[in-house]
C-alpha cells in the first residue's frame, strides 16, 4: 500500500511516520504542503509537529494549505486519513473531525507514556487491535486537551466515534490517567463516516520494541488491513 505523509514547515514526526509504515513493509513518501495532488496514495497520514509555528492556533494555518484541499477531497471520496498529534489538531481545525484541542489543563507540555483504551474495533484504524488490549503509546504536546460541547459529545457517543480514551494500566478511565484535561478522557476520535481519524498520542513513536512499545503498530496495521480488504472487494 502507498501512504502519503504530509510535510508542513515545522512538521517534526514526518520521518517517524515514514519509518513506521516502511518497517511494516509498505511504501510511504513525503508530500510537501504546497502540493495540490495526492498522486496515487492509498491513505494519508498527517504527522505531528508544530506546523507554521502553531501561529494563531495549532493547525489553523495548515488547514488552508494547498495539500489540505486535496486531502479534504480525498476524504470526501472515502479515502482514509489519519492525523497524529498536530495532524489531529489540523483535522479538527479543518472541520474534518469534530471538536478542538486546547491548552493542557496544567499549562505544561507533557512528554510521557500514556495508556489508551480502544472503544470500537470495527473501524479502519482499529480493526487489528486485539480485543481488550490496553495500548501503551507516548504523548508529546502542550495543546492536547480535547474539547467539544455537550451536544457534540452526545453525538460522538451515539455514533460510536470516540475511538481512544486515556486510562490507567488496568483500563480504568480515571482522572489521574488523563494527562491534559480532555473531556471524557478523549484521546482520539473519528468522523461519522469512519474514514478520518485523529489522536493526540503518537503511534509512530511506539511502532517497534526498540522504542519501548510497539503497540502503535496495531493502528498502522489496521489501516493497511482496511486498504487490503477494500482492494480485494474491488477486484472481486
Amino acid at each position, binding site marked *: 500500500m502507498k501512504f502519503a505523509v504530509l510535510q508542513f514547515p515545522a512538521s517534526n514526526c514526518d520521518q517517524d511516520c515514514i519509518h513506521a509504515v516502511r518497517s511494516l513493509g509498505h511504501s510511504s513518501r513525503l508530500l510537501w504542503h504546497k502540493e495540490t495532488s495526492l498522486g496515487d496514495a492509498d491513505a494519508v497520514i498527517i504527522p505531528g509537529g508544530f506546523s507554521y509555528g502553531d501561529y494563531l492556533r495549532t493547525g489553523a494555518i495548515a488547514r*488552508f494549505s494547498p495539500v489540505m484541499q486535496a486531502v479534504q477531497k480525498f476524504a470526501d471520496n472515502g479515502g482514509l486519513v489519519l492525523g497524529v498529534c498536530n495532524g489531529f489538531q489540523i483535522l*479538527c481545525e479543518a472541520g474534518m473531525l469534530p471538536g*478542538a484541542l*486546547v491548552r493542557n489543563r496544567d*499549562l505544561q507540555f507533557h512528554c510521557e507514556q500514556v495508556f489508551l483504551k480502544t472503544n470500537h474495533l470495527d473501524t479502519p484504524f482499529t480493526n487489528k487491535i486485539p480485543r481488550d488490549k490496553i495500548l501503551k503509546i507516548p504523548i508529546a504536546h502542550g495543546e492536547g486537551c480535547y*474539547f*467539544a460541547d455537550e451536544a457534540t459529545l452526545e453525538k460522538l457517543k451515539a455514533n460510536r466515534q470516540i475511538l481512544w480514551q486515556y486510562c490507567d494500566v488496568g483500563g480504568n478511565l480515571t482522572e489521574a490517567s488523563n494527562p491534559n*484535561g480532555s473531556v471524557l478522557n478523549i484521546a482520539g476520535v473519528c468522523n461519522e463516516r469512519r474514514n478520518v481519524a485523529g489522536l493526540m498520542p503518537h503511534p509512530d513513536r511506539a511502532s517497534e520494541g526498540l522504542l519501548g512499545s510497539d503497540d502503535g503498530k496495531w493502528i498502522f496495521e489496521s489501516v493497511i488491513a482496511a486498504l487490503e480488504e477494500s482492494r480485494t472487494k474491488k477486484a472481486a
Partner: protein
Amino acid sequence: MKAKIIVTPKKAVVDPQGKTVQNALEHMGYRGIKAVHVGKYLEVELDGGDKEALRKSLDEACHKFLSNPVIEDYKLELE
C-alpha cells in the same frame, strides 16, 4: 482604516491561563476579582473602502479563520 478583533475563550471552555493569572493577581493582593479570561487581540490595517462591505468580509474571516467557533468568541470593531 483599521479593524480591531478581540478573541476570547468560550465560557464552557476551561481557561487555565485565565485562572492562573487570576490566582497571581490575588496573591499580589488585588481584591475583588471574579474571573480572568485570556484571549487574543488582532489589529488589521485596511486600505479603506466601503465600511459595511469590509465588515462583512472580515466577519467571515473571523468566523472561518481568525477564531475557532468551537472554542472561541470574537468581537470585531472597525474604525
